[in-house]
């Protein structure tokens, strides 16, 4: 199922691009343009998560946050260009779940959205991602193909997940490394090659050896 996210943000570039980005990651995105009724819209339409800016024309992010919290427990991430500790403290006191200051790291934003949604909706959260014949089970860190399964390391899991998320596109080596760095694994070029080779070997073991294709000079794709 698709999770719905409301974006309450006045900067047009940011909200449109966020919407494109989140749609690409299979979220259903709605943009709120009337900030005076923003809190009511959230309450009446009950999205799965809200991204809220603090500086809005004609409204204040803090009061919107407070209004929402009066009658809803929806996860709220404050996304703002204010970066003082005071703003962060205020946001958390008013019931926001996360505080990210612009310009944020997109991978971190995605990870926080993902983590909040998984925690808020555990029953619906899926620990399994499927692609063609194989499925990735995040709770056990294994990849399955029919009856056969093989255990993956954290890095291998993350690489495969990224390739599945971006299926149909070529993912560059730098992009894969960036994604791994975001999980505290500061690997270099050689280690990445080793990781990819091991991953291929393991996929070979479950009968999907040719799943990851090398695009010479560009990167990898499924």
């Amino acid at each position, binding site marked *: 199922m698709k999770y719905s996210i409301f974006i309450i943000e006045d*900067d047009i*570039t*940011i909200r449109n*691009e*966020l919407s*494109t*980005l989140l749609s*690409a990651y299979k979220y259903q995105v709605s943009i709120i343009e009337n900030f005076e009724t923003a809190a009511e819209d959230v309450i009446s339409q009950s999205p799965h998560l809200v991204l809220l800016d603090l500086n809005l024309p004609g409204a204040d992010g803090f009061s919107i946050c407070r209004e929402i919290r009066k009658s809803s427990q929806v996860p709220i991430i404050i996304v703002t*260009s*204010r*970066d*003082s*500790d005071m703003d962060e403290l205020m946001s958390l006191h008013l019931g926001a779940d996360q505080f990210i*200051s*612009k*310009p*944020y*790291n*997109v991978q*971190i934003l995605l990870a926080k959205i993902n983590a909040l949604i998984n925690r808020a909706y555990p029953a619906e959260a899926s620990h399994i991602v499927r692609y063609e014949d194989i499925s990735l089970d995040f709770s056990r860190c294994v990849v399955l193909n029919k009856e056969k399964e093989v255990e993956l390391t954290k890095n291998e899991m993350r690489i495969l997940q990224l390739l599945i998320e971006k299926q149909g596109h070529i993912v*560059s080596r*730098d*992009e894969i*490394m*960036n994604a791994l*760095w*975001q999980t*505290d694994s*500061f690997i*270099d*070029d050689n280690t990445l090659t080793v990781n990819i080779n091991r991953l291929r070997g393991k996929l070979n073991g479950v009968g999907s050896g040719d799943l990851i294709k090398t695009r010479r000079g560009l990167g990898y794709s499924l």
Partner: protein
Amino acid sequence: MKIKEYLSGKILYLTICFTTSIFCGVFLWLVQADLSFTLFLPVLFLLGGILALIPEYLRKRKWYSKLLAYKEELDRLTLLPAIIDRPEFYEGAFLHDILTDVSKSMNDEIFKMREELRDYREFVELWVHEIKTPIAGAKLVLENNPDTPAQRELDRIEHYVEQALFYSRSASVENDYIMRETSLKTLVSESLKQRARYLIANKVKIETQNLEPKVLADIKWLSFILWQLMENAVKYGASTLSFTGIEGNENVLLLIEDDACGIPAKDIERIFDKGFTGENGRKIGAATGLGLYLCKTLCDKMGLGLSVKSEVGIGTTFTLVFPVSYIFVSES
């Protein structure tokens, strides 16, 4: 004011006193006055002239030595006229009034500059916050159209914007940082994550060792400092960056080691000076001489140490020193 100094200003007066006394003596001698008169009167005359100076000397000495003492004690000299009493003797009062006017105009000037500086600082902070929105927008555009080098250029723009913010903060007397307990690991990996693209694109290998020790620091400030050190290393050709934590009795050290070109011995003393670029900076041509100065200033404000060791052709090691605070001591 010594007597000699005082008297040296009174030479003309004394000469006249002396001369008139002599004249008086000569006159008395000419009119054939009694010998005791002829000798006694001029001496009395001279004595009177000299004695008259004593109260004036004492009064002046008192005031001048007070003035001198205040001058030594005050750290803001422009306040001097406001503190010292207006003296009763004419020259002193006259000078005091003029000094008061001078210092008032000086204080007005300083006040005006302070105001301007504060306004300017506020403007820079506001501007930095404003510009973060379009930067965030551009980053998202690029995220949706990946694989352009523009991403990491934007990261650099972001860094320079932050540099402006920290520069304006470092010049202010207010200390708007918050020291929190954190680990070296958090500090290092947060800044590595934020600058991942730049470091990956430059093929930098990362090594970390013993980053478990806990320290007190402002995470945002430290992230800026670490990034500044890393960016310098990359700019001067580092291919490996290693981060090592060392736990001592009185402090925790974080060593940031690179294998870049190294800093010549003649430059190393001055690399934390404002505006200093040195031989390496001139070769690369993209040095402002601000980065390390800012690092040092921010460290000083937080009470952290920052030192450097380097060998040309081998590399440079920066050492951050975190004093072990009494909080940890009392906990253990």
